[in-house]
């Protein structure tokens, strides 16, 4: 039973506090850069932090995106990114300002790479992630100088960069640059920014706890894989350890991509937050939020308040998702409008014979008698 190993894991986490800083540093050095576990910060790894009180008034910004990927068989190739966002003036009692911003990409320069290949779905998703952060930066400009938390509905590490092996590097770098630029803008506007992951499946703190138990000379890949805590997650650990409203200590993200973020001044940190019974969120924040007590407290207090009525997941992110989502009917409408526009310019947009044949076959097959 996995659960029976939780007390041992908890003891291993507490044990980290007793380990001399140098001893832990030696273990981390031996584990090396490629080891994916969490790195500790100034905060003792096993401490839990009570919820701070939120400011009487602050701004909560949330953005989420959705996309229509290009269909090779459709009449007119295009892709679409739609960003939904919510700007809540917490404490005002007024309705939030909502936005839904669709952008249609149909220019060949947007659709095809330098070798003439159709843009990959991963790259489109990366551009969507950057557009979400861009929307938050745009909104934060308007609340500069006032306490503001900007929320994203995923981790802060740009997922696209993790998949870079399969992607042409130049467009990926462009997206990464844009992403970093938006983070820099958010920092300049004085906003805290946090990426929220619901039901996280990471085991980075579990890895760190295990590392603390290993003698330095036994630290190697084989022993990482032979961890007695294999299969246990950070979520299970902190669901047991934290009381509702409490957060874990802040850790440094162990992803190799974090080096790019560190170089740009945005090294990604994270903590776990218990927003409700059995609801653990992973909250990813840049280093400049982690090291500023006011901004760090604002992330914890504002996320808790926002998630109080929605079973532990932030209300504003649920709404941003609702504003972003593209329904099937809307997708068909976009396709029809594009085809009509092409036709006006004398370019009939015909779906491929394959997609036409598929449409014939997906209809009702039985004839009524």
């Amino acid at each position, binding site marked *: 039973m996995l659960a029976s190993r939780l007390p041992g894991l908890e003891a291993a986490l507490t044990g980290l506090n007793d380990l001399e800083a140098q001893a832990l540093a030696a273990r981390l050095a031996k584990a090396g850069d490629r080891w994916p576990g969490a790195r500790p910060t100034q905060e003792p790894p096993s401490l839990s932090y009570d919820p701070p009180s939120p400011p009487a008034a602050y701004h909560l910004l949330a953005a989420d995106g959705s996309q229509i990927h290009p269909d090779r068989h459709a009449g007119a190739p295009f892709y679409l990114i739609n960003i939904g966002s*919510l700007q*809540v*003036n*917490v404490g*005002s*009692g*007024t*309705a*939030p300002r*909502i936005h839904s911003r669709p952008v249609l990409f149909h220019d060949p320069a947007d659709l095809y790479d330098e070798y003439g290949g159709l843009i990959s779905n991963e790259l489109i998703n990366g551009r969507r992630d950057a557009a979400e952060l861009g929307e938050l930066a745009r909104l934060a400009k308007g609340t500069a100088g006032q306490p503001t938390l900007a929320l994203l509905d995923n981790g802060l590490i740009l997922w696209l960069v993790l998949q870079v092996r399969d992607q042409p590097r130049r467009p990926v770098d462009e997206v990464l640059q844009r992403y970093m630029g938006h983070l820099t803008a958010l920092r300049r506007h004085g906003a805290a920014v946090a990426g929220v992951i619901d039901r996280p499946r990471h085991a980075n703190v579990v890895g760190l706890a295990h590392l603390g138990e290993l003698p330095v000379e036994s630290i190697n890949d084989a022993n990482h894989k032979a961890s007695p805590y294999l299969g246990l997650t950070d979520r299970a650990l902190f669901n047991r350890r934290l009381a509702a409203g409490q957060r874990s200590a802040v850790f440094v993200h162990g992803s190799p991509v974090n080096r790019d973020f560190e170089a740009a001044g945005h090294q990604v940190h994270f903590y776990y937050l218990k927003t409700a019974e059995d609801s653990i969120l992973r909250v990813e924040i840049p280093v400049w939020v982690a090291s500023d007590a006011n901004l760090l407290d604002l992330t914890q207090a504002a996320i808790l*308040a926002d998630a*109080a*009525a*929605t*079973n532990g997941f932030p*209300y504003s992110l*649920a*709404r941003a998702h*609702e504003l972003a989502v593209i329904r099937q009917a809307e997708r068909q409408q976009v396709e029809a409008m594009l085809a009509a526009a092409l036709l006006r310019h004398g370019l009939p947009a015909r779906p491929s014979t394959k997609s036409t044949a598929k449409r014939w076959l997906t209809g009702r097959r039985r004839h009524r008698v």
Partner: protein
Amino acid sequence: MTTSASTLIGRVTRCSLRGFVGALRLPEPNVPIFGAFCTAEAQQGTSHVVGLIYDITIQDDEFARQIATTEGVSEEQIADQQQNRQIPIEVSALAVGYRRGNRYQQALPPQPPLSLAPIYSLPSAEVVAFTQDLAFLPLVLSAGNLPVDELLAAALQQAALARPQAERRPFLLEAGRVCSRLMADDLGRLDTLLQGLRPVESGA
């Protein structure tokens, strides 16, 4: 809702000869009220069914239900749900007559409106024209499973308000007389209805 111009209330989603149901997405101040007269096109525009709004329902929404059942909901979240989120409102109307050309008929329409036919509020002048004749009252009284007495009182009050001040009281008195004839065998109900027909001074 008696207005000088017709307002688009919503579109028909289902209907029968006895009435129609429409969905609308209007902010709260513009939602039509109980007993208001409305009209929907039928027979390819050659006739217009006149309906009395007898029910307004807000459809179930899982997100709103989740928030409604928990503590810790903020003022901003409530304002967001009520003002920003467009929750479909369903309006049900009882058919009480129809217009063909310039003439109103106080009878069930020959055909119901079709799906997605626009539903408009009936402008004040048309409400006055339709209620010159009170032959539609039996259609209301014979409707089953509806709060017909309250509906009738609300509709007649609306019709009175559509008239100039001086004509309101005589109209309600005449309506009371017609109701007395129609409901002579149920004095208890009649009494309640007549209470509901007492003139009101301000707009509904």
